[in-house]
């Protein structure tokens, strides 16, 4: 995979500019944590990136998850792989999943602690469970780069660790908007601090401590 | 558990219609039970006489009978004067085959409920003004066309202007029962249908009576499509005509009721067509 770059990217909300212009290059193997106050434009930056890189196999894990509440956990995860199959196969899966897809997806769910939920409709799950389903979908989808917006915000300590570990294992290259600075520093190797629509910190994570990031908040 | 259900369903599927069945219909001018009984007998009779499968199809309106004839879904029909003219106009080459002995000199009865206070008379009376009045079906000759014609002729006005209320009962049996119940004070009815109802004991002649008999005009006839020979073989039309003229089973004839059938031609109904045009019921 080649490097990805943004050139003078901007994001507007109505007439107000919330982001940019900013430029940025991401090299393969870089896992970037976006940090900053809420409303500072992290989600906008992710949207811009997704719009730019969707064709280069970017995988999106949005803050509101994008799950289909009427479909089962299995099907929501399977949706990550829709593009890998023909339409008839996908439609048939909707009626009755194929064995091999169940074999692929079930272990993923087991590791996320959702092993017994494969058949439950997503609409019946708790917030934390839903967030793990969304993570599973992103992992099942795979792709060159993960763009995740607060992927573990609804998870408690140990679960957040599991999910973060699985995400970074699946995606060597990623941009993650994070509010938990400790997790951000441990699982990412580069940190971008956003303030007032621009990048104010851009450092490898091993050179930063949580205290260095406090001024952003 | 589903098997018996499926089997039952499968059995209820009617077999496909056989290709060359000779199908006929009739204008629904009376009670359906009466029509069904009458024409099923005719179907059986024709089947014996013609050596083809014959099927009677009931329809819900006069226009439906004409349309079925026109659409070649039926090949023969027992039409009224007006519906016959309409049908032959739509299907070039079709011809009137036979009419009842009575049909050459048919009449309409005006029947009145006692509340109307009318007495039998030789002419339409001014006492009829502002009563409630019902025709039969909109497309009926004896129940609509001719009575409207005579009313306009006598009063010089449209029926809606003569009467307090004008309705269409849809068939002669219902005209009789509507007038008998007082729903309408006056009604125009086919005289054979009236006699049928009286004979069957369906009418309380104390509350409803005939107050006027119209002049004579030609009415019902059997009409066949022009392409019947092409489809059922040379001479088929003549055989159908002969079969109709030969019908002499009293039980069968009584159900119409007709004394017998006599030959008829399209020209016999010219007067009906002219009146239909005059009343703007035919273009």
């Amino acid at each position, binding site marked *: 995979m080649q490097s990805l770059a943004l050139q003078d990217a901007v994001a507007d909300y109505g007439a107000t500019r919330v982001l940019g212009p900013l430029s940025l290059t991401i090299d393969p193997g870089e896992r970037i944590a976006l940090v900053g106050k809420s409303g500072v434009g992290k989600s906008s930056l992710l949207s811009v990136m997704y719009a730019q890189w969707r*064709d280069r*196999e970017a*995988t999106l894990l*949005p803050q509101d998850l*994008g*799950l*289909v*509440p009427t*479909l089962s956990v299995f*099907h929501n995860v399977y*949706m*990550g792989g*829709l*593009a*890998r*199959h023909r*339409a008839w196969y*996908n*439609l048939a899966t909707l009626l009755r999943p194929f064995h091999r897809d169940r074999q692929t997806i079930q272990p993923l769910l087991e590791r996320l602690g959702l092993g017994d939920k494969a058949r439950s409709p997503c609409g019946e799950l708790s917030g934390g469970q839903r967030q793990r389903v969304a993570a599973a*979908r992103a992992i099942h989808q795979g*792709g060159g780069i993960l763009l995740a917006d607060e992927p573990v915000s609804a998870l408690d300590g140990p679960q957040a660790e599991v999910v973060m570990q699985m995400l970074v294992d699946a995606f060597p290259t990623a941009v993650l908007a994070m509010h938990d600075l400790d997790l951000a520093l441990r699982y990412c190797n580069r940190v971008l601090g956003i303030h007032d629509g621009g990048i104010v910190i851009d450092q490898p994570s091993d050179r930063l401590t949580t205290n260095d990031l406090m001024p952003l908040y | 558990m*589903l098997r018996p259900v*499926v089997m039952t*369903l499968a059995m*209820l599927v*009617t077999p*496909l*219609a056989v290709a060359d069945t000779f*199908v006929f219909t009739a204008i629904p001018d009376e*009670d*359906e*039970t009466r029509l069904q009984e009458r024409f099923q007998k005719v179907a059986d009779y024709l089947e014996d006489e013609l050596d083809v499968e014959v099927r009677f199809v009931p*329809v*819900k*309106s*006069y*226009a439906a009978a*004409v*349309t*079925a004839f*026109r*659409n070649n*879904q039926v090949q023969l029909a027992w039409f009224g004067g007006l519906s016959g003219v*309409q049908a032959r106009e*739509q299907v070039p080459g079709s011809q009137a085959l036979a009419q009842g002995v009575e049909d050459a000199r048919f009449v309409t009865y005006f029947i009145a409920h006692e*509340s109307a206070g009318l007495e039998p008379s030789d002419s339409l009376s001014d006492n009829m003004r502002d009563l409630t009045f019902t025709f039969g*079906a*909109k*497309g009926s000759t004896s129940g609509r066309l001719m009575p409207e014609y005579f009313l306009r002729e006598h009063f010089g006005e449209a029926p809606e202007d003569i009467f307090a*209320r004008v*309705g*269409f009962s849809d*068939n002669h*049996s*219902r005209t009789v029962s509507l007038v008998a119940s*007082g*729903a*309408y004070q006056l009604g125009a009815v086919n005289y054979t249908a009236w006699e049928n109802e009286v004979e069957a004991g369906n009418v309380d002649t104390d509350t409803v009576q005939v107050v006027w008999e119209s002049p004579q005009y030609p009415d019902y006839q059997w009409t066949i499509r022009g392409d019947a020979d092409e489809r059922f073989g040379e001479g088929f039309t003549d055989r159908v005509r002969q079969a109709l003229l030969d019908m002499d089973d009293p039980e069968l004839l009584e159900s119409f009721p007709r004394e017998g059938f006599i030959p008829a031609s399209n020209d016999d109904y010219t007067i009906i067509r002219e009146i239909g045009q005059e009343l703007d019921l*035919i*273009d």
Partner: protein
Amino acid sequence: MSRSASLRVSLGFIALAMVCLAFGDFEISTHDPWQELGRIFLGLIAPDFAAVDFLGEAILRTLAFAFVGVGLGAAGGFLLALLFRHLWVRTFCAVVRAIHELFWALIFLQFFGLHPLTGVLAIAIPYAGIFAKVYAEILDESDPQPAHTLPRGTDHVSGLVYTRLAQAWPHVVSYTAYRLECGLRSSAVLGFVGMPTLGFYLESAFAQGAYGSVGALLILFYLLIGTLRWWVRPRLLPLYLIAAPFLLGTGLPIVWSNVSRFFTQDIVPAPLRNGEGLEGLIPWLGNLLVNQALPGIWNTLLLTQIALVLTGILAMALFPLISHHFTGRHGTGRLKGMLGHIVLVVMRSTPELLLAFILLQLWGPSMLPAVAALALHNGGIIAHLVGQRSNQITLRQDAPRGIDRYAYEVAPRVYGPFLALLFYRWEIIMRETAILGILGITTLGFYVDSAIQEIRFDRAMVLILITALLNIGVDILARRLRNYLRLRHSINRQSC
């Protein structure tokens, strides 16, 4: 502010209806209406199931026409819903659903004749128009986010099915099931123009005064609709849909040349057909407008407005029957509520045409049977929905009781949704009003029926189109009023 606006609008409608009353004809002309009613009632309590030879067949055909018609309508409607953003699709759907099933049947009768296709299309076409509109609304309400996260390269069909359709599915299913109930009513009513369904036998039985048979047919019809949710199961549905086309019967064979004749000759206005050109067409059209369309429109509007107001009054009066604020929740209250439910179910499952037909036999021909039938049927539907709505309200524990509770606590809270529902039904009431003309009440349907009886389809088509335009007009007016009164409730799905 908005409260007083709805009050003003309501009073305006009531005043208009009063004026209309003065112009209408509401006389009971039968001699002894109660005796006839008594006979019908006797028929209902002592139904004669043996008297109707074709009872089984009538039921089977009614079901088959409903399933095939609604099935095709749903499939067609779904495809149209996907194209609903195009103006021409929306216009097409508005026109086809503005024409009543019976008018469609009358049209198809002219060239398909008594073939099952006539009945099937008569249901499928207007239903497709309605399905398209509602499905499109349902799909639009689905969350767009899942579609946004789809992997690149997902094919369109999978994308649609997994995201928008999957979310909309429960609503699509419940709406379609509801329409199936409507379809059963439509299918039964098609018998009145000659399809071999329940209405066919009901009309004959009525015409012959065979009230035992009438009772048997009506009871079966209510049973069929009342038990719908027990025998229409998602798992059984495919079986029904596969079996239904084979159970339509054969009717008479279609002659295809009739179809082209219908479109190239029958519906071409007579002056054009006879080569008189525009000079002939204008007087022809003028004549048709003055003598038939205008009186038809006048009577249709008159009747619609009166029926609309009466529907509203009835609905507001009857909804307490099923509202637990009035029946109570426990003991006898539940029983009362259940009885109320049965009353409303019977009211709303009886098609207007059928009710009007029965009332016509009782009261004789005037606008009265039509108004009563429309108000009973539609009032039953709205009362049911308003009652349900009222059950979602929680009253404070010391809320007043009886009439005070109705006037101060409940009625003001449900009045907005009630008005919205009433305006949604405005168009439906008008469509039904027009069709009631085929029973002899001089609304537009009367003139359509006359034109058809005279084998003049050119006139019939013009009159049907005028009816459709009138419906579309009322629909637009109702939408404006709803917006003006800020009545926004996505409850327009409850409409037959």
